[in-house]
């Protein structure tokens, strides 16, 4: 059994955290979600876990101390974290942000949605795919070169 959370939410906005956690709770996913408030905490948390433990990271871009881009760059630079799935969840619609994130190795990019039709429900859709369907290597992958 996996008692420890395998979904990492990196978000500094408490409103967004509250909305997200409510949505996760409604879908019985609350226990699987760990929330950190900045990039440094995220890096520390990820590096303390074995490779393949974290199923998905929901990464905000604009954060204090180490921002989302830097987190993404450092994760992809580290062999042990190179394959951890990262979904950027940002309020930015900007194509430059989107392009930059993919260039840095993001697996997905989602804009934050505000809708009366179900607060935070879009996150549930995202997480369900990465947690239930997606598969990742158990050990660090080697470069062919």
């Amino acid at each position, binding site marked *: 059994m996996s008692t420890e959370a395998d979904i990492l939410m990196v978000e500094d906005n408490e409103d967004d955290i509250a*909305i997200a956690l409510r949505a996760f709770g409604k879908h019985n996913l609350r226990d699987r979600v760990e929330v950190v408030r900045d990039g440094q905490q995220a890096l520390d948390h990820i590096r303390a876990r074995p490779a393949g433990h974290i199923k998905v990271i929901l990464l905000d871009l604009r954060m204090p101390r180490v921002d989302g881009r830097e987190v993404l760059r450092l994760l992809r630079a580290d062999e042990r974290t190179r394959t951890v799935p990262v979904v950027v969840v940002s309020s930015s619609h900007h194509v430059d942000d989107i392009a930059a994130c993919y260039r840095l190795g993001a697996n997905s990019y989602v804009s934050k949605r505000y809708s009366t039709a179900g607060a935070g429900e879009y996150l549930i859709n995202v997480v369900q795919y990465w947690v239930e369907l997606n598969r990742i290597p158990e050990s660090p992958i080697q470069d062919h070169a």
Partner: protein
Amino acid sequence: MSSSESPQITDETTGLAPSGRSRVTSVSDMLNLTRGLVSLWPTTLTFLAGLLATAGVWMLAETYPRSERSRALLGVANGMRQVLEVRMNDHLRGLQLASEVWPRFATDDPTRWKSTAQMFLQQHPGVVLVAIVPAVAPAAAAGPPAATVGASPASAAAAPAPTPADPATELVARDPGLEDWKFGSEVSARLEEAQRRAVSEQRPSLDGPYAAASGEVFYQIAIPLHADQGPSGLLCALLHPGPLISSLVSELASGYFLAVRDEGALVYMQGTPPRARPSGEPDEEEVAELPLRLLMGRTWTLDLERPGTPGLPPLLTLGHLVLGAGLAFSVLLAGVVHLGQVARVRARALAIANRELRSQIVSTAVAEGRVRRINESLEARVAERTRELDEVVAELETFNYSVSHDLRSPIGAIVNFTSILAEDYKEKLDEAGVDILRRVAGCAQNAVAMMDGLLTFSHIGQQALTLGSLDTRQMVDSVIAELLLALRGAPPTFTIGPLPDVVADAPMLRTVWTNLLSNALKFTESSRAAEVEIGSQPAPGEDVFFVRDNGVGFDMKHASRLFNVFEQLHPGAKSKGHGVGLAIVSRIVRRHGGRVWAQAAPGKGATFYFSIPKQAA
């Protein structure tokens, strides 16, 4: 603007101080101005000087040749005089010498005397006869020479003489010409008289002239003989000066009129006597009179004259020629001076014009430089302003983006929390409370949609165009399909005409079609038989597309505001549009170099047009 103001404006624009003197606009004007400056004084003075010189030369020409001619005539006459004097006196001196020798010969050797006398005659052509004549008694009626001379040799021999048989009395005469010197008795008497006088006075005499019967003029030379030298008496000789003078000077005097006179009596004459001169007194250049000083106390006169000029004096004398030529020369010189004067003034005018032109060129260059500097500074200022404007625009875009982005989260949170509240606590709220919460969520969501629109709008302004050839019909079909998925009511009837392909940024053009078509769908939602027509119109240099609906339409007086941000087409639109869609369409089309416009009437639908420029293949 009146034309009289333009020079002032020119000066203002060029910044040139107007020059003090009047501006000369062209070189020809300058030359015209100087035409009056050509002074006539130099020309006049030159002409007068020419006239003066002509007058001087004319006077010289009038006087110099005259004295020259006179001198020439005198020279000729002088030469003749010398020749005549020498020769004549040679004759006389010869006779004088003979008078000392011959008497002795006559007595001693008459033959020798005769031969000597003949020789003398040969050497002295002027003497036609020589004879030694016994002294004639003063009482004697006629001297032997008279008889001798006056009659004939035969009669002379028979003439009474002191010594009739004396051989010395024989005549020695030139053979020819005897007939020429037959004198009449009167002349003979005078001959004897002269002989007697010579004897009595004991000095040689040259007496005459005696005109012979032939008309010839003769002179008698009577030289008394000294008694101690032989027979007393006279040496008589007849001088015929005419042939002598002729032989001496006829050639010299040819072409002249020559006369040798002996106190009025004509001794010799040659040539035609000049006609009487109208002025009476003959000019000295025409006449030379010289004395011929002979031995034995006689003086003749030599008169040499130029032949009379026949007819009137010639029309063109040297003086006339000089005068005419001088006059012409003066006129020519004055003309040359005048032309020189004109040329000088023109050259000066040209120099002034050149200077003026050069200064104008310099001024123009200065003005051009100034204009160029102004232009450069203007361009620099425009570039600076543009850069500043770009900065401001960029700042505004950034501001727009930041505000939209930063507001989006809190307002989005309101959307979420109100919906959570309405959902989680609906049992604790009555129906009115739930309705209020829903309205709050709706307003907040509207705000989020507007911010999303603003973000897109801002994004379109900042993003670079990626042009590519697009299949317009395929894009339109795709957009319609997408829109129909989200459509809740009955779909309208689509009529799609021919749509040309375009070169454009694909995502942006898709946004254009999406916004226009969703607009059409929104405004026909309430219509019973909604129709949307999509088509294109031919236009030069661009492709014009349109989207026409039969919806609510709008008043054309609002058309100018249609494409501004947050302009709602009509109040009833409510949450259907967020006021950014058409602004985004306009921005995209304008970024492609095209135009957008609309035509509509309330209740009669609307047509939105946009154009995309054709790309040069």
